[in-house]
């Protein structure tokens, strides 16, 4: 049978506040265990939460970024359950009245097509601590540094239909939140964690199948693999006439499998009720409007502008608009060299290629946008060929200075002097009697192919510096 995958994602996004959502403790990643846990984070008796206003601002910015309804009066609730790394015995979350209501979100797939994914809601909550089971001689250690870190839980509608769409959704989300500056989006440090709700149904069916929830998948690649694996697992069961159990499953990246954590049937009753230690968050139109004014140009807006302003293809524009830094870099290169298409090509192929190979962030890129623009300018004014330009780029990457300095120092300037080129062309023709004969005997169609040999010889003779256009013209004239 043909199965349709139905996926909804819950993303826990760590907000980039300096301090925790309900205490003044810092949120810096990687500190020594329990050095960033105050009396509030430890849930000492009598301690009370105080809301970090920045977390509210970030949540509203997110809501505006997806055009969602903003909860003008949102309420914190207690979600009650016992766990050693949950110090209060409840998590402060939002249940009935989240700060961000329904919104929508556009994703773009590899083929350039776009889809809208519904956002059900996004709410503020605090993170729990971590239980550490190794190195404690059979006991468990509790690290409460993470306890109280602000999270925005973003819940999508079951609108996602494939692993590819899921990844595209997460990438677009990542792009959006980093544009907004509300999260560093660092998945390896857990700043963006994903729960996947997935069910299958016969292609064309209206009703949803029973879903499984896969918890805490922490990279784009794992999301893709976990969905593929879960699809196979569920399809196997259904095709054998079995039924899917609604349950929580854990993705094991080492084994590339999901396994059952707990069945929802015996799940906790969280006994949600309004948190009496906090007042409802009441915001007004002017608060929202002030934040709306602060919204930067968002990824999709930037992409559309790149298409329109620079004549780029949708896919290229999407890649370049993926992060604010890259988009800014690209636009600086365009400003410096004046040719958006060549700039787009260099940024995407050479620059991103080098960054990926070196596993570098753009921030630590050794070639500045000004230098890349300077290099492209030399291509455009025929000072160097595209091929030489790659050498120059490589030298710039090694820190040898600007394109002009490198071209000068290495004597890479393109030879465009017609006299000099003519003597080289003559030399090549003189040394290639057999090829000349073959050429002259060939018809027009074949000649086009054969001329490449002569061009190549001239380039070799000139150490790649001959102006290929002029060489072609000269050859055409001489080989009559």
């Amino acid at each position: 049978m043909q199965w349709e995958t139905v996926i909804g994602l819950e993303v826990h996004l760590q907000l980039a506040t300096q301090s925790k959502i309900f205490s003044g403790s810092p949120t810096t990643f990687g500190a020594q265990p329990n050095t960033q846990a105050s009396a509030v984070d430890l849930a000492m008796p009598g301690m009370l939460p105080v809301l970090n206003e920045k977390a509210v601002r970030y949540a509203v910015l997110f809501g505006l970024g997806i055009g969602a309804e903003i909860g003008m009066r949102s309420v914190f609730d207690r979600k009650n359950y016992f766990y050693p790394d949950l110090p209060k015995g409840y998590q402060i979350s939002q249940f009935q009245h989240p700060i961000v209501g329904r919104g929508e979100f556009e994703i773009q797939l590899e083929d350039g097509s776009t889809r809208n994914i519904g956002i059900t809601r996004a709410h503020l909550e605090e993170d729990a601590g971590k239980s550490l089971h190794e190195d404690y001689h059979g006991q468990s250690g509790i690290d409460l540094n993470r306890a109280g870190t602000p999270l925005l839980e973003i819940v999508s509608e079951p609108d996602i239909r494939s692993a590819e769409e899921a990844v595209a959704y997460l990438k677009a989300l990542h792009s959006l939140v980093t544009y907004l500056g509300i999260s560093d989006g660092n998945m390896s440090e857990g700043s963006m964690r994903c729960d996947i709700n997935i069910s299958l149904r016969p292609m064309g069916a209206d009703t949803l199948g029973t879903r499984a929830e896969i918890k805490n998948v922490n990279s784009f690649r794992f999301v893709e693999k976990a969905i593929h694996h879960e699809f196979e697992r569920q399809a196997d069961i259904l095709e054998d006439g079995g039924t899917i159990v609604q349950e929580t499953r854990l993705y094991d990246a080492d084994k590339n499998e999901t396994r059952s954590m707990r069945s929802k049937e015996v799940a906790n009753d969280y006994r949600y009720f309004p948190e009496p230690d906090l007042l409802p968050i009441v915001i007004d139109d002017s608060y929202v409007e002030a934040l709306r004014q602060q919204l930067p140009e968002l990824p999709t807006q930037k992409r559309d502008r790149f298409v329109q302003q620079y004549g780029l293809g949708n896919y290229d524009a999407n890649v370049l608009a993926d992060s604010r830094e890259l988009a800014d870099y690209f636009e600086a290169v365009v400003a410096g060299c004046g040719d958006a298409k060549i700039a787009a090509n260099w940024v995407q192929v050479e620059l991103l290629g080098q960054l990926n190979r070196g596993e570098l962030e753009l921030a630590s890129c050794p070639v500045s946008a000004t230098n890349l623009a300077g290099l492209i300018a030399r291509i455009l004014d025929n000072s160097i060929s595209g091929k030489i330009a790659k050498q120059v780029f490589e030298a710039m990457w090694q820190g040898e200075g600007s394109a002009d300095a490198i071209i000068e120092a290495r004597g890479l300037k393109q030879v465009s002097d017609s006299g000099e080129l003519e003597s080289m062309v003559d030399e090549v023709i003189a040394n290639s009697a057999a090829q000349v004969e073959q050429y002259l005997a060939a018809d027009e169609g074949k000649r086009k192919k054969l001329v490449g040999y002569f061009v190549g010889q001239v380039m070799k003779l000139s150490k790649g510096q001959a102006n290929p256009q002029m060489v072609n013209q000269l050859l055409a004239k001489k080989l009559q």
Partner: protein
Amino acid sequence: MHDRTVAQLMAGLRDKSFSSAELTRCFLDRIGALDEQLNSFISVDEEAALAAATAADARLAASDAGALTGIPIAHKDIFCTDGMRTSCGSRMLDNFIPPYDATLIKRFNAEGAVTLGKTNMDEFAMGSSNESSYYGPVRNPWDTNLVPGGSSGGSAAAVAALLAPAATGTDTGGSIRQPAAFCGITGLKPTYGRVSRLGMVAFASSLDQAGPMAHSAQDCALLLNAMAGHDPLDSTSSPEPTEDYTAQLARQIDGLRIGLPKEYFGEGLDNATAGQIDAALKELEALGATLVEVSLPNSHLTIPTYYVIAPAEASTNLSRFDGVRYGHRCADPVDLHDLYTRTREEGFGDEVKRRILVGTYALSAGYYDAYYKKAQQVRRLIKQDFMHCFEQVDIIAGPTTPGPAFALGAKSDDPVSMYLEDVYTLAVNLAGLPGMSVPAGFVDDKPVGLQLIGRHFDESRLLNVAHQYQQATDWHLRRPASIAGGAA
């Protein structure tokens, strides 16, 4: 020295009739001599108290003194005290020494007040007789066979027995007013949010409020001056400006309209107590007040409403006591479940367990709407009842309790009859209003309390009425014969 009001002690310290060290020594000696029979203190740190007194004397000598500098005060053992055990009357926190002070403690310390010790209380403030304390019951100084009321029974008994000139308490459903009534002292539960809850071990967050317990309304006003105010670390504390709560004490009360809710004078009120309350109201009338009958039609829903909301909040507030980070932990847990269940089984007493069970049930899926949500709706109605009354009257008055103090053990096996003790006080907490209990006579040598209820943030008015009443009566000056003459 020990039988003076805070106001008198302040004067004595200022005119150097005695030092804070002498005063503190006097009360410490009385505690040492008399508290064995009352059990009103859980912890007393003589050394720390005397050191604070010496520091206060230095401030007094340097004319750098605040209003309460050098005044010894007993704090209910629900307020966290840096470096001093804070047990909340529970085995669960028998070993708990906080590394911080509650905001209220900080404020008293900043004033230069001297902490005499930490007073006994019902476990986690759950009780109306002080019999649920892990440290044993407190006895009523007027008759040691009687309960002192609860949950701030230790504070009430200590003040009544002149072991401390004043004390702090907390009131979630009557826990300041009822023991104040039973012990013949004056107690004030301020408006919800008037005094910071930070560092006060939580029972029911939306109801808990700290307040002063002392001999007179004037003393309560002096203490409230130190306690009241916005605390940025307690989101529910009010930004409403405070005032000098002594400023209005002397104001005449002629023309004051006092509402008498007919529901507070009907069935269930002990006849002799009713007689004392009537006499007190006549006294107020004689001072120029007008008595107006009013109605709080949802009064009959107060107890069920309270006993859904308070246990619901308590059930989750007490989840943090899990044996993981502090407090009691059972010996040799075999696994996590064992750690939780045995720690909580051993650490909590019966009344606390009962309320955790009730509260957990009320919040459970399928019951939430019927219990918790409904109770919140009724709570709004109860508050509206008061708001309607305050359109007609300035304050509301009635009995604090249905009758005087009862014998130890008389109600400890019957939770419902114990809960009925708070029938007149609970609604004030549900509505977030300020309420007072003022000594208003005796029934069979047992003190009776007159309850005064005010508008939100109208503590000054309550204190004014109570003070005027105390100018005209001497009930608040009566002392229990058995211990009044003790040591010192």
